[in-house]
């Protein structure tokens, strides 16, 4: 009974959330290829400056005062000194778990830290500080399903921690889809 209610709620919510685009499927397969959440190990609210990191997957760029800020997918920001554009130099990596977007005013960097919005003082890159945090400013933010993904996925379990990404996995009777 409870399970039926859950399914109804799920079907209803997925229908409400994604109206127009998706026909909610109802046949749950025994086994199917899909996506499973990757949970962040440790405290995802822990933000800090690190030595330069290798570039893996960039997707956002921001520029201010001869510094390039390049977003590393869901991990943080590469800080590149571009005083001489012929010889750009990677000087720091700002670790911001679950980050996807930034903007800067003065010495303050505004970024999403998964579903939170944070203000970070970057005046001294060796000693960056979180000045303010708005919790859950982006409900459902952080790491949603990949934009172009439609199919089954493992329902995120909030007790496992914050979802920082998605990986392909063979799922047994998955109860979530879109």
């Amino acid at each position: 009974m409870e399970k039926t209610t859950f399914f109804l709620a799920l079907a209803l919510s997925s229908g409400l959330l994604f109206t127009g685009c998706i026909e909610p499927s109802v046949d749950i397969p025994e086994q199917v290829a899909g996506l499973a959440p990757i949970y962040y190990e440790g405290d995802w609210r822990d933000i800090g400056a690190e030595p330069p990191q290798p570039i893996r997957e960039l997707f956002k760029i921001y520029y201010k005062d001869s510094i390039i800020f390049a977003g590393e997918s869901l991990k943080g920001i590469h800080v590149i000194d571009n005083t001489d554009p012929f010889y750009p130099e990677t000087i720091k990596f700002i670790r911001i778990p679950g980050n996807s977007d930034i903007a800067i005013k003065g010495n303050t960097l505004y970024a999403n830290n998964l579903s939170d919005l944070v203000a970070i003082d970057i005046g001294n890159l060796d000693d960056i500080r979180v000045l303010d945090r708005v919790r859950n400013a982006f409900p459902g933010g952080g790491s949603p399903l990949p934009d172009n993904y439609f199919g089954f996925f493992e329902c995120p379990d909030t007790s496992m921690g914050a979802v920082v990404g998605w990986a392909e996995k063979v799922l047994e009777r998955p109860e979530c889809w879109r």
Partner: protein
Amino acid sequence: MARNLITALLLTALWSCAESDSEAAFSDSNTGTGGSLARFTIVGDYLYTVDNTTLNSFDISAAGEIKPRESILVGEGVETIFPLSGFLFLGTRSGMLIYRIQQGGVPQFVSNYQHVVSCDPVVANNEYAYVTLRASDCREAGPGAADLLEIIDISNITNPHVVASYGMDSPFGLGLDGQTLFLCEGAGGLKVFDVANPQNIQLLHHLTNFNAIDVIPLDGLLLVIGPDRIVQLDYTNIDDIRVISEISIGV
């Protein structure tokens, strides 16, 4: 009908008003520059963010302090935000939405331009908005969706209308500097157009030796980001655009 007319007149008045005071009120050298795929932007004392369905504003007038303000439901599939002269242009999967920033930073809906469902960012000047529509690898893409660059006349901000449309190959981010439009085509590289005549834009260059997702034109210096590298080009002489440096995997 009469009410619509009055609203239109009022908005036209607001637009002309915005044009005259825009530079003084909204230019802010203290703020950086984002790419066209940005979902955060700062205008004056306000940070605006979009997240799929919502346009949020935050008062950041006090350094280091974030005060949540508006949270406006704007529809489905909002992907990008681009600020210009007191307006916010939102790229969504079903079209472009235009909001005016009112007193106190409050965004007010002005108009929209609808297109078939696809993935798309937008850049603009005071006359035209340039929107790329990507159907390739965009699973939400609706029937009839194609890979396009659309040029939309926004000189009447309340009534944006398409003036020209060009076939592209899986377009992503784009950047505008005067009459030069830089358009990223992912693995297909970077296209550079002269858009002086929107009815007849000219392809000046097509650089194919790197993967381009988004760009920032900086007055002669072009920053290009791909998934695996940052490429910088010198375009002070647009006929002789050239790569000057590259940061890639492994640094």
